[in-house]
């Protein structure tokens, strides 16, 4: 069964072409990448499980080693960019698959995922991967062309992320006072920052870890009133013990 020619190859009107183009040319917003990486990274702040995860993985039995090896390959795709983006040199990234999985334990899978049948069964035998020629996949061509043409994130966004990473790093190293100081600096430097939501989550975590539980709880409640459906909501609850 051969696939028919795509409509965009021979649109019957300019309007049809414009609509199809609009659908194909949608791209992630400039802040979406940072927020996604930060959402994954933020989770690591609360658990600080990377060292534990490394230790845990090293105690795995020899029989499990092959699975770990596969896991490391997989995790490289996710963890390395996150790790590097958060300011760690690529060569020293002590990240394992377990670390990234552990990095988001308190974030429950979305309801839609929980209620739906696990996609794994479909994926395991799925011929889609085999039928997906890597460089020439049309979908990837469409996306990668735009990705290549897309300018890098604005400097201010990188600066914002660096500022938050300083706070995140302090927090994960058990220095919530320094994290709060870094977050104060963030608020001063970026009064209309695009990552203010993420900064607020870090602040709630820093307050909780510095013994200011009541302040953390109040801010958490305020956060949840404004962002009840945020992907960070469960993290905020976890920080504040709600």
């Amino acid at each position, binding site marked *: *069964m051969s*696939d*028919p020619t795509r*409509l965009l190859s021979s649109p*019957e*009107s*300019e*309007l049809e072409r*414009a*609509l*199809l*183009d*609009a*659908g*194909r*040319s*949608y*791209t*992630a*917003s400039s802040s*979406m*990448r940072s*927020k*996604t*990486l930060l*959402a*994954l990274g933020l*989770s690591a702040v609360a658990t600080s499980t990377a060292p534990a995860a490394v230790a845990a993985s090293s105690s795995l039995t020899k029989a499990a080693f092959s699975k770990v090896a596969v*896991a490391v*390959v*997989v995790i490289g*795709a*996710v963890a390395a*960019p*996150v790790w590097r983006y958060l300011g760690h040199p690529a060569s020293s990234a002590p990240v394992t698959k377990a670390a990234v*999985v552990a990095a988001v*334990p308190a*974030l429950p*899978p*979305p309801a*839609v*995922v929980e209620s739906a049948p696990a996609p*794994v069964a*479909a*994926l395991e035998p*799925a*011929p*889609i*991967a085999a*039928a*997906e020629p890597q460089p020439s996949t*049309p*979908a*990837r*061509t*469409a996306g990668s062309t*735009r*990705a290549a043409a897309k300018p890098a994130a604005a400097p201010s966004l990188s600066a914002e992320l660096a500022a938050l990473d300083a706070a995140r790093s302090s927090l994960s190293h058990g220095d919530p006072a320094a994290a709060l100081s870094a977050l104060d600096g963030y608020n001063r430097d970026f009064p209309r920052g695009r990552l203010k939501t993420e900064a607020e989550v870090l602040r709630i975590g820093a307050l909780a870890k510095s013994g200011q539980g009541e302040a953390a709880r109040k801010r958490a409640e305020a956060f949840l009133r404004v962002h009840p459906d*945020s*992907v960070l909501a469960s993290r905020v609850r976890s920080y504040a013990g709600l």
Partner: protein
Amino acid sequence: MVDRYLDFVARVLRNAGTPEAEVDDDVQRTFIAVANRLDDVRPDAEKSFLLQTALRMAAHARRTLARRREVHDSDAQLRIQTPLQPEQMLDQKRARELLDEVLEQMAIELRTVFVLYELEELSMTEIAATLRIPQGTVASRLRRARADFRDRVRALSGSTHAEVGS
């Protein structure tokens, strides 16, 4: 993986019905869900896993939106009658709005196949595997989806010309 598939995930979510304002959050949810399930993902099946997760996210977003509209909104049919000026034809934002309106009116099973084939350029084999339906069903849905899409675009174009010309 985030770098490689961010646009892909965002595009699938948006075209499959996630409202613009919720794409950011659902992109994050999609990647977090996949990060939580890395044990189950074959290294060469990341894209497929992301796609299936994104489609479920979009389905959830559509249901939420539909419930909201039952209370607050309005008739999509009315919105699609918004006059379209000729100079707006190629305006990307306007085209996006019109595409949303056309896609919203398509039956969901047709919309999904249409988006995956026409916008993501997946093959029918890939779509069948992703949706776990026979290839014949994919072919049938695609045929109906394309006809439906073209009918709606023609109607939109016709009403536009009539309004513009009047």
